[in-house]
């Protein structure tokens, strides 16, 4: 496993902005004093005239982004997920969501894999907050390749988009020639018959590895990557539910309002099956290394493997 490349999705975000800035002269990037961490500094370096630092004033940043968007700019506004969504939920809802403006809330440091900074900085509610805004697209890329593709897709999409990137280095799992990214389309990574396991973001890697362990135990798991939580790929989820009759969701987010809830909304309506939601179980995060926390919250491959087996009663 040592030859697997590990890169943070926030790195892909910064690189994508810097690469696409030339192609899109109306691309504007904003930050709130975290440009080095969110990687928007990479865009700033190349296009200083189209980069604005709001200082430590997130509310003003996202509302200014709305004003810029009214003039035809594509605006990416970045901070840590906690401050880019939680602190400014109402600004995003009223000044960006309601007028359906072309602003991309690109949040880094989502989830508990933020690590040592602890609960105050580990946003596990961002997907829930953004999902409930009408017209908001919610996208959580799983790796470097997908994160880059998601930035391009967000530019191509006319309207508000929430993108969640991570702090920690994670394996590159999508570097294959036939990789295609389409907003709103889930990806079947492995077909199976006993249980459907759906992951999002950096948990897709855990799910892929857990599948190998399950297979060794004779369990056939269908593995799906849902990078777009809204609009969610209902067709794909229902099709898989009909095949396996059981779903497990895995996310580095509260089990309230995130991927698990979105999947439940889908199957409740179209084809009810039992769903187990693996995620942060209605508790706050805590300090620790990213790897230690993924293990502690049972979001690593071993944790997913064990919980799927518990769910299947095996």
């Amino acid at each position: 496993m040592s030859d697997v490349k590990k890169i943070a999705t926030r790195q892909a975000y910064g690189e994508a902005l810097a690469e696409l800035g030339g192609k899109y002269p109306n691309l504007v990037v904003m930050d709130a004093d975290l440009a080095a961490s969110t990687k928007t500094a990479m865009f700033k370096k190349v296009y200083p005239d189209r980069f604005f630092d709001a200082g430590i004033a997130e509310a003003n940043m996202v509302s200014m982004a709305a004003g810029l968007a009214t003039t035809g700019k594509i605006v990416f506004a970045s901070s840590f997920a906690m401050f880019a969504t939680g602190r400014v939920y109402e600004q995003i809802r009223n000044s960006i969501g309601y007028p359906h403006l072309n602003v991309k809330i690109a949040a880094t440091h989502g989830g508990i894999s933020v690590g040592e900074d602890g609960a105050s900085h580990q946003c596990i509610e961002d997907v829930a907050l953004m999902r409930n805004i009408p017209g908001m697209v919610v996208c959580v890329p799983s790796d470097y390749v997908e994160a880059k593709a998601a930035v391009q897709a967000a530019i191509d999409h006319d309207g508000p988009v929430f993108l969640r990137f991570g702090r920690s280095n994670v394996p590159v799992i999508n570097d294959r020639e036939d990789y295609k990214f389409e907003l709103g389309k889930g990806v079947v990574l492995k077909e199976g018959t006993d249980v459907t396991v759906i992951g999002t973001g950096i948990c897709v890697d855990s799910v892929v590895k857990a599948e190998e362990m399950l297979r060794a135990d004779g369990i056939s798991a269908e593995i799906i990557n849902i990078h777009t939580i809204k609009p969610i790929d209902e067709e794909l989820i229902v099709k898989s539910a009909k095949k396996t009759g059981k779903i497990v969701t895995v996310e580095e987010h509260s089990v309230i309002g995130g991927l698990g809830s979105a999947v439940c909304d889908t199957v409740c309506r179209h084809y009810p099956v039992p769903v187990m939601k693996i995620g942060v179980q209605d508790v706050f995060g805590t300090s620790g290394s990213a790897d230690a926390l993924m293990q502690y919250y049972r979001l690593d491959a071993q944790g997913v493997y064990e919980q799927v087996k518990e769910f299947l009663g095996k």
Partner: protein
Amino acid sequence: MENLELQKLANKVRQGIIISTHAAKSGHPGGSLSAADVFTYLYFEEMNVNPENPKDPDRDRFVLSKGHTAPGLYSTLALRGFFPFEDLSSLRHLGSYLQGHPDMKKTPGVDMSTGSLGQGVSAAVGMALAAGIDKKDYRVYTLLGDGEIEEGQVWEAAMFAGFHKLDNLCVIVDNNGLQIDGPIDEVCSPYPIDKKFEAFNFHVVKADAHDFDSLRAAFKEAKETKGMPTAIICSSVKGKGVSFMENQAGWHGVAPNDEQKEAALNELKKAGEALCQM
């Protein structure tokens, strides 16, 4: 435009405020009336706007940060020719393009959706920034309530605008002295307003919100001020023009009933006729 013409138009703007809030059985007449002369001056004298092409990319922008006074903005836009004056009576009705608070997607001439206090001013700063990027010379105006500036976000926006020397931005504060819970200096006083904006690197001008000579001088000074944004602190009377609404916090968010509407319109029409005989 002569002051007398502006006064006649402002009188009609006030009538529209009464007609629309009465028809809606709700809305905010007090702060709409206090800002009626400012709305009139902006749309009939100051701003470069075109009702035939409301989305002209080179137009001046206006953001009603105190979005609850939409009846004042709508009445002005209607008189300026953006939509029929008769439609004001659809205010706040189901299916109307005149929403309770400004909606840029529904109403011609509305440059930004607002209503949640403190956010519009930031959007205006964003528009002013965009003019800089695009090397356009349009100006951006935003109207705030004096209670609204209790919102912390207003000062985030002011800090940014002052720091970036956005001299195409003109912030107007409608200083009528009253907010829902009472006089602003009894609720949580934002005074001194002028010194606060000065401290945030604004050029500050004081004006009488109901005197067109004063407004003319203030907006001229704002336009001529380079290297920093301008804040015009407009001293105004809440409910101005309708005697029983003047200086009453209670008329912040209450609509006139049938009787009150007739009394208010009679008073305004008389004042309008007097202007016509001048």
